[in-house]
Every structure is written in structure tokens, then in C-alpha cells.
């Protein structure tokens, strides 16, 4: 029953672009899928209390690597993408290994990752001779210009990107499922409860945390590359830095980061909410949309720390309408961060 529902939903998602929806809606769908994917990748770590405020750094590293390889050396993005992922992995390793080894947890970990995001942003600005600094850069148009270039990942028809984004998003959900069913999940949950106790029963704390961090970093930078290649414009301030990293976290929180669809629902809600406020207020009252958005975020964290999906799930469960034998992930108390350890 549930499987059929999922397949039907997937069929709708695949078929939707062939019904010739307005370009604007297609654009929104692509953004939601990409940000949903990035949020899901963030939540690989976030759900276990590893709150990173520097995921914008991974987004920027991936996309700048691909764009620079393409513009400067003429290497096609298909080569650039693995290189970008590799560099993100190196960055994640350089931050993650010492952080986990020396037990930097809770909001100390958040601040270290925040500093990492800033390092990436400022390095890109500092290398303004090749990256264009704060003005941003544009990947060069493929020569000779064509409408559909798989070689350069440049398409005039948005539907190609829609399918790429859909694929990437499904990949992220699949990875989520793998993590969810693995032993690593139990280990990581134990670690987020009590690091010392988990170490004492033989869980390799550093390795468990590092592995999920590496997966998260790789997926995030993949999402970043899609985003940059879709927009065909890169800017250090809108890809890295504190603002964007916080937004990734917020989307995951609003949707609910303890269950697979949560971050995507968060991206769906935040993007559609912003866009509708923006079209509603138009050019008057600039900033109104974001003001309401910020206000709602605060309210969410105060009153619904498990997110909309988490709260809904709990509500449905309590009413006893779903058969109790199918809990995907039993509702758990939210307890991100274990700063008490210090």
C-alpha cells in the first residue's frame, strides 16, 4: 500500500514536466529539489546532533571547483564533479577528523564549522583574480553554443535540470534510507546520547562520526554543483558564509530533521512561502517577506523543534490512525547537541 503510494508520487514527479507547466513553477520545483537534497544531506549529520553551520562551505567548494576547471582548463563538469567532491571530502576530513578526535562537540562544533564556512568564503573572495571575488563568476558558454549540451551540462530547457535534480534528490533519500537501516545509525544515536559511554562499549566514536560527515559533505557539494550549474552564476556570498549555512539548517528544522521527507518538506515550505510572500508584497515593502520568515523560524524552533513533518507524524500516531506496525523511525525526543559533555 505504502509502496504503491510512493511509486505513484514518483510517477507524478516524473510526468509533471511533460504537462508543460509554467517555467516559473518548473524553476521553483528545481530549486526545491536541489535545496531539499542539500538539506537532507545536512540532516545526515544534523539528526545525530552534529550541527554544522558551515555546509555552505561544501556547497561553494564543489561548485567553484567545477566552474574553475571548466573556465580555466576547459575540463568538462563530468570531470569537475568528482574533483569537487574529492576536495570537499578533503576539507571535511581536515575539519572533521581533529574535531571528532579532540571531542569538539555541541556549539563548539557549530562554531568551528561556521569558521570553516567563512574560510571558504573569504578564500574565494581573496582569489579574485580567477574567481571574480564578490562579483561572482559565470561558467563559460559551451562553444559552439547549442541548446542541449550534455558535455557542458548546459541546457536551455529547464526540464533537463529538473530530471538531474530529481535524480540527485532521490539519491539523497536513498542514502538516508541506507544510513537509517545501518548499524551506524544505532551507533550514532548512542554517541549523541553519551559519547563516553558509547566509546566504552566499543563504538569507534571518531570513525562513526567522520564517516557520516564525509557522506554529508560529498552529497552537499554535489547539490551545490547542480545549483551552480543550473543558475549558471556563482557568488561566494550567496553560496558560502553564515547566511546560507543557516538557511540550510533552518529548512531542515522547519520540515523536521529526524525523518527522511522532513528536510525536503522544509525546503518546499520555506521556498514556496518566501516566493508567495515576495509575489504578494511585490516591490513595495522590500524585506517584509524575510522579516516574516525570520519571525516564523524563531517560532518554529520554540514551539515545534521537531519540525512540521515530525509534529504531524506524532499527531497522526497519537490518534492511532496509522497501524502501529509500520513506524519508519519511532518518534524520538529531540536532543541535538551534547554540549553537557563539557
Amino acid at each position, binding site marked *: 500500500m505504502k509502496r504503491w503510494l510512493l511509486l505513484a508520487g514518483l510517477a507524478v514527479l516524473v510526468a509533471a514536466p511533460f504537462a508543460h507547466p509554467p517555467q516559473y513553477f518548473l524553476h521553483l520545483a528545481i530549486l526545491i529539489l536541489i535545496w531539499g537534497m542539500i538539506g537532507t544531506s545536512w540532516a545526515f549529520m544534523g539528526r545525530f*546532533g552534529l*550541527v554544522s553551520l558551515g555546509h555552505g562551505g561544501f556547497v561553494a567548494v564543489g561548485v567553484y571547483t567545477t566552474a574553475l576547471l571548466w573556465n580555466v582548463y576547459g575540463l568538462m563538469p563530468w570531470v569537475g564533479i568528482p574533483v569537487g567532491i574529492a576536495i570537499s571530502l578533503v576539507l571535511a576530513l581536515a*575539519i572533521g577528523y*581533529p*574535531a571528532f*578526535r*579532540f*571531542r*569538539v562537540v*555541541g*556549539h*563548539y562544533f*557549530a*562554531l*568551528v564549522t*561556521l*569558521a*570553516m564556512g*567563512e*574560510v571558504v568564503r*573569504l*578564500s574565494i*573572495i*581573496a582569489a579574485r583574480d580567477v574567481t571574480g571575488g564578490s562579483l561572482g563568476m559565470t561558467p563559460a558558454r559551451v562553444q559552439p553554443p547549442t541548446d542541449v549540451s550534455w558535455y557542458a551540462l548546459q541546457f536551455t530547457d529547464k526540464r533537463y535540470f529538473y530530471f538531474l535534480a530529481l535524480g540527485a534528490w532521490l539519491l539523497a533519500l536513498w542514502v538516508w534510507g541506507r544510513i537509517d537501516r545501518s548499524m551506524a545509525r544505532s551507533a550514532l544515536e548512542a554517541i549523541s546520547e553519551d559519547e563516553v559511554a558509547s566509546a566504552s562499549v566499543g563504538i569507534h566514536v571518531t570513525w562513526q562520526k567522520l564517516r557520516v560527515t564525509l557522506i554529508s559533505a560529498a552529497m552537499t557539494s554535489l547539490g551545490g554543483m547542480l545549483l551552480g550549474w543550473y543558475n549558471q552564476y556563482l557568488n561566494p556570498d550567496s553560496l558560502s*558564509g*553564515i*547566511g546560507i549555512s*543557516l538557511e540550510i*539548517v*533552518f529548512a531542515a*528544522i522547519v520540515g523536521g530533521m529526524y525523518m527522511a521527507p522532513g528536510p525536503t518538506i522544509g525546503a518546499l515550505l520555506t521556498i514556496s512561502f518566501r516566493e508567495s510572500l515576495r509575489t504578494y508584497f511585490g516591490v513595495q*515593502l*522590500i*524585506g*517584509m*517577506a*524575510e*522579516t516574516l*520568515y*525570520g*519571525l516564523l*523560524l*524563531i517560532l*518554529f*524552533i*520554540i514551539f515545534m*523543534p521537531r519540525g512540521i513533518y515530525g509534529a504531524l507524524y506524532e499527531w497522526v500516531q497519537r490518534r492511532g490512525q496509522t497501524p502501529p506496525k509500520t513506524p519508519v523511525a519511532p518518534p524520538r525526543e*529531540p*536532543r*541535538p*547537541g*551534547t*554540549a553537557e559533555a*563539557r
Partner: protein
Amino acid sequence: MFDFFLLEAILNGLLFGGVLALLSLGLNLVFGVVDVVWIAYAELVMVGMYIIYTVNILLGWPLYVAAPLSIVGVSIVGLLVHRLVIEPILNTPPINQLLATGGLLFFLQSFATLIFGSQFRNIGLSLPVVEFFELYVSFARLLAFGVALVGIVGLYLFLRRTYIGTAIRAVAQDREMMGLMGVDTRKVYLITSAVGGALAGLASILLVLQQDVHPFIGLTFGPITFMICVLGGLGNLFGGFIAAFVISQVISIGSFYVSTELSYVIAFVLFIVAMFFRPEGLFQRRS
């Protein structure tokens, strides 16, 4: 061999350290006592700058009226932040509090955009550049340095010599025990938040003298302020003060030899590395 410009860079770094120290003072207090990272602290400073701009330019009142109003205004904002945002989630994991103030960051930024627009604004006052023995230093920075010194001494005396200051230090040491001993921790938190806000207001006065205000100004100095607080050790005011000067020298000398952005990169990398080896801050005594 002796480089005159390097000396100037060092001197300016010293004064820049004063600004950073002043900025980190209030955050450090809140961080140490309430144990909450106000990610939106730099935005509180921005609120103070806008208060001065509004009172001084839009209402046309003199600066010596605008400046105290900014301190009072931001301290009320600090009080409200604690009462409305932090208090409801005080007993949830610390990361939630950090994220809630992150929401506040968005809120304040866009609220400022809504009211003032995203243009750069200033109070149209430029302080002179002072020359000492052929070294040129900005008077605004010199002033900030002096005020930072006065601020830290004042805060030290407040914490050491007053009754409520003693209560604040006691709560910072053991919040649960103090509650059991009959200290009204709620009141202590509210006062701490208000004092933290007032210090942000004080910093905003000195910042508005040297920089234009715009809604995103907080992002330029916010992250570095957190780094300083953590480097100095949470709630360790003197540690934070010294860390401010270490960081400012790194930035100032780094800007002299390489570039401003790279010098910030060096400062952040230094922070990350320091965090791995001394997570309790550079100057904290190990308990």
C-alpha cells in the same frame, strides 16, 4: 630593516583590537552566564547603529542624546531577546537556542531592510586622523580603544563589587545550585541579557563613527566576534580581551603582508586549530 608602515599596521591593529574587544565584551558576558550563543549579537550592534542614525539624522537630535538612547534601546532589545526567544527554550539543548537566535539574525536583518532599505547610511561625521610621531592613526579607533578599556574595567567592577554582579558570577559557576540556594536565576539572566545588550549599544556608538550602517553589516564582524569569545574562554572577560588583540594583530599584520581577506582566513584557521587543542579557550584554567 625597520619598517615604518609595519609599525603603523601594528599600532592600528592594537586599536582595532580595542573595537573587537568592545564588541566581544557583551557577547562574552551572555555566553558565560546564560550559556547561550547569541548568533544575532552583531545584529544587535546594528540595531544600535540604526538607533543613532534615526535619532541623530532623521530626528536631528544631537549625538550626545542619540548615544545614550542607543545603549538604553539595545539593552531593552537584549532583555526582550532573552524574555521572548531564549527563555521558552532555556531547558532544551543549547543548539536550539543558538538556532533560535539565528532566526533572530534573519529577522533583524530583514526588519532593518524593511524600514531603512539596503542603502549604506552614515551620520555624516568624520573624525580626524591623528598623527603621532609621523604615525597616522584614526581618532575613532583611538576612542574605541579607550572606551573598550573603560568598558572592561567598568564591567569588572560591576561583576566584582556589586551584589547583583556577585549573583551573576555565582550563577555562571553553577546555575542549578544557585537556583536551589534561593537566587532568582531568571532575574539574573534578564539582567545579564540587558547588560549584554547595553554593551552592544556601547559598541554600536563607536562603530557608527567609523563605518556606514547597512542591514548586512553584522555579517562582516559577527563571526570574528564569536571566535574571539571562544578563543578567550567563555565568560573569561580578560581572556576575551587578550584574544581580541591577538586576532586583531593577525588581521592587521596579515593585511599588511598579504591581503585583508587572506588575513581573516589566517585568523579563522588559527581559531579552528586552537579549538582542537584548547577547546576551553586559550586562557582558561583547566578545572
